[in-house]
């Protein structure tokens, strides 16, 4: 995905609900209004996990 792009837009384009996913840039959690640069290492982590 090309940047810069807001975290909220990434979730929207992937059709992922914000309540069920976290956006992590590098090792840091970011809010939905964070603008993530093109070279950012972004992880979209589901919050449901484990057993």
């Amino acid at each position: 995905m090309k940047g810069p792009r807001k975290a909220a837009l990434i979730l929207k384009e992937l059709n992922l609900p914000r309540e069920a996913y976290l956006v992590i840039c590098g090792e840091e959690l970011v809010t939905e209004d964070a603008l993530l640069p093109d070279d950012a290492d972004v992880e979209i982590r589901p919050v449901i996990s484990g057993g």
Partner: protein
Amino acid sequence: MKCRRCKKPAVIKLPRHNTAYCGFCFQFYVYEQVRRALSEHKMLQKKEPVLVAVSGGKDSLALWDILTKLGYHAVGLHLNLGIGSYSETSQSKVEAFARTRNLELITHAYQEAYGLGIVEIARETARPACSACGTMKRYHFNRIAREKGFAVVATGHNLDDEASRLLGNVLQWQESYLQKQSPALAAEDGKWARKVRPLYRLTEREIAAYTVISRIDYIIEECPMSKGAKMFLYKEMLNQLEETSPGTKHQFYLGYLQKKEQIFSPQEKDKQCCKVCGQPTRGTICSYCRLMERVAT
């Protein structure tokens, strides 16, 4: 977006509280929610050791971390379910967590105890895996707590777990389960451990965020045996409601806890001791011993 408390850049927005926090202040928020849960339901006494059931997932490791930081003597209990690499990874996450924080950990492996993992036990007894797993976990939490002298067992159930369980119980009109659903269950017969759920005020997303901020390494994958479980559908539906109406899960579950006593008359004690193992049961033989009978045959 700025942190509501300190005005530094926020890392998490909490629409249900119409607020946002930086990492430090969010941790403070989490501790306050847990303190409130502990206090409102008189879950733990400060000097009493607590056995924390730790799977290697985010909720249980966060719970162990939080209770330790709040000054409780929390000892971990990990049940290795014998689900191939999933269980191996889960145990290694728990052991690494305990080792790096110098915490006491008790482990029990089904493969060593029965020569079978939960997948094989479920298959041999023709029970759904999650159902057999729940039965066995309850039995071992009770047994190990009693053998090791713990009066209380804490589990990492969060607000999403409780709200989705409530939704499932309402949809099926499971009155006995509805009546029993509580973040704190008293000791049965006065001799088995109390069960407490100190994370019930925090959502799944908040706990996942806490583990990222607190650098807690946990198993991110879902249990492979839980695929297709109805609980996930209920969670998804509740999350859809939460997105359009923040605070729905909180109002649903905490509202239920407030009204529960008006809805149900005090619970009659209808449990007795299992004739085989002595654990509490509604019948004469508990569900764990019935399961084990089927494994043996």
